[in-house]
């Protein structure tokens, strides 16, 4: 039993790290643009398919496919925001959220139109699992973990040390003050969209490397992404990481008592518990 739990904890940490990547994207858009952008689901799918094309059709290694997915999903994110969501923002956060759901539907079906509903897998070498102290881990899991950690480290370094990263944090913190200091809010919004949707795309590749992809890939993980962001504190980037690890471990541990199909319900339950007891989440600031 303790060994089984240790195995689930290990799997949960791996899954949580992957989940953290799109969760950072969701929470970053929330922090800067102040609306829940559900289109993160569609961009995750777009990234997954862009990475798949790079990996399977062009024969690029997985690490390069991640880069392709980041750029394609990021550019798609900027384009969709400029053309569709940005003009609607004056109508309010909730109207924009509705539009984001409609946008997701459109984008998902564009992917479905081109690729069909079939499940697709990435081109990966089959390797034996590593074993240590009775715990098993697949080399691919470790590989994905490293990609996720590198992506997150890059985001943290970017936000902490570059001028643009500081501008983004300033806008998230206090848009009025940032504009008084001459920070161009439009530019920051575009950049946030690029990075956030790019991260969603990376998340899509990681899901694809882990399992397989289809046009609903993004929608299937989105509940866990919301849960990670809300549990960690909506709008807080370190919170998204803590939240994602919590949800990842929680989903795995739930296998002890629940059928595997109910993993995502854990996320929903976690949202309810956090909103009841501590709405601002583990590291968030305010929620009302």
């Amino acid at each position, binding site marked *: 039993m303790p060994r089984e739990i240790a195995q689930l904890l290990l799997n949960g940490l791996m899954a949580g790290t992957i989940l953290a990547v799109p969760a950072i994207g969701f929470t970053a858009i929330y922090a800067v643009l102040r609306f*829940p952008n559900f289109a993160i689901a569609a961009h995750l799918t777009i990234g997954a398919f862009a990475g798949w094309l790079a990996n399977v059709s062009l024969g690029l290694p997985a690490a390069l496919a991640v880069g392709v997915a980041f750029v394609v999903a990021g550019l798609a994110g900027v384009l969709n925001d400029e053309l569709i969501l940005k003009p609607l923002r004056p109508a309010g956060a*909730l109207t924009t959220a509705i539009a984001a*759901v*409609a946008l997701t539907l*459109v984008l998902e079906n564009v992917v*479905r139109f081109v690729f069909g*509903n079939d499940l697709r897998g990435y081109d990966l070498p089959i390797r034996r699992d590593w074993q240590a102290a009775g715990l098993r881990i697949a080399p691919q899991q470790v590989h994905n973990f490293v990609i996720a950690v590198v992506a997150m480290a890059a985001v943290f370094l970017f936000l902490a040390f570059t001028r643009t990263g500081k501008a983004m944090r300033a806008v998230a913190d206090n848009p009025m003050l940032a504009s008084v200091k001459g920070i161009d809010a439009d530019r920051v919004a575009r950049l946030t969209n690029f990075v956030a949707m790019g991260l969603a795309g990376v998340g899509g590749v990681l899901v694809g490397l882990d399992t397989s992809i289809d046009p609903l890939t993004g929608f299937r993980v989105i*509940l866990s992404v919301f849960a990670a962001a809300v549990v960690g504190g909506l709008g807080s980037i370190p919170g998204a990481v803590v939240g994602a690890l919590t949800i990842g471990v929680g989903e795995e541990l739930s296998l002890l008592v629940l059928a595997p199909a109910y993993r995502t319900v854990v996320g*929903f339950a976690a949202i*309810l518990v956090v909103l009841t007891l501590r709405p601002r989440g583990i590291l968030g600031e305010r929620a009302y």
Partner: protein
Amino acid sequence: MENYLVAMAVFAGLYALLALGLNVVWGMTGMINLGLVGFFGLGAYASALLTRAHRAPIVLGLAAAALVTAAAGAAMALTTARLRGDYLAIITLGFSEVVRLVASNELWLTNGTDGISGIPGPWRGRVTPQTFNVVYLAIVALAVLAVFALCQRIRSSPYGRVLRAIRDDDQVAAVAGKRVIVFKVQAFAVSAAILGLAGALWGHYTSFIAPDVFTPLVTIYVVLALTAGGTGNNVGAVLGAALVIFLMEATRFATGWVGMLKPVQVAALREALIGGALLVVLRVRPRGLLPERLARS
């Protein structure tokens, strides 16, 4: 052909109920419900299970559907009542996925993805299918009329005025001494009950429900119906529902003519068109065809 038209009228009526239900929260109170298909599905399952397995009368099934969904709606509104509206958006969207997951996996209760068939309908089997269709249209028309009257009553009453005040600025409503949370929870429960009722009526009409029926697409249809008709306006909600059914059927025929496409591409095209239509309406006519009119004070 007549049968087809009657069936479309029934579906338009059911969508009108959904749009009216959404209007109570989104149009009148300014609360979002992005998972309304979850309440729709919950109502359908509640009534189907009660009337099929326990042989309860259909009226009882409808009442139970409304009660169960009202309770679920109240719980969600209560959880997020003090928080920003974004949280309600997330929680309702999550709720609809949970309903679909449970419906797909609790085989003993819902028969999983195979769905429940043989849901009883009023006088089904005792009259010809044509007559059943017409009778059901009359029932749905009555339901729409009753719910429409209720919604108009809410809208024109002092109660509806408080809801609008909350929509426009809930702090002002609170300062005026209104208990905002109570109003929000009540409005959400009423709205959820209407959505659940529509779901129950859906099941008794088609005699078959499955998790596949309750996809997020339905939510988009209904939001499109209300937005196109005129958010906040009950007449607009009904008109918008008829328009959406017309649009869906028109695209069914239109895509039938495009011979080169595979079935999955046709389906993708139709769904993309519906989503695109909502984006266009939000952009060019955000207040809908029949914008809400408010009495001057």
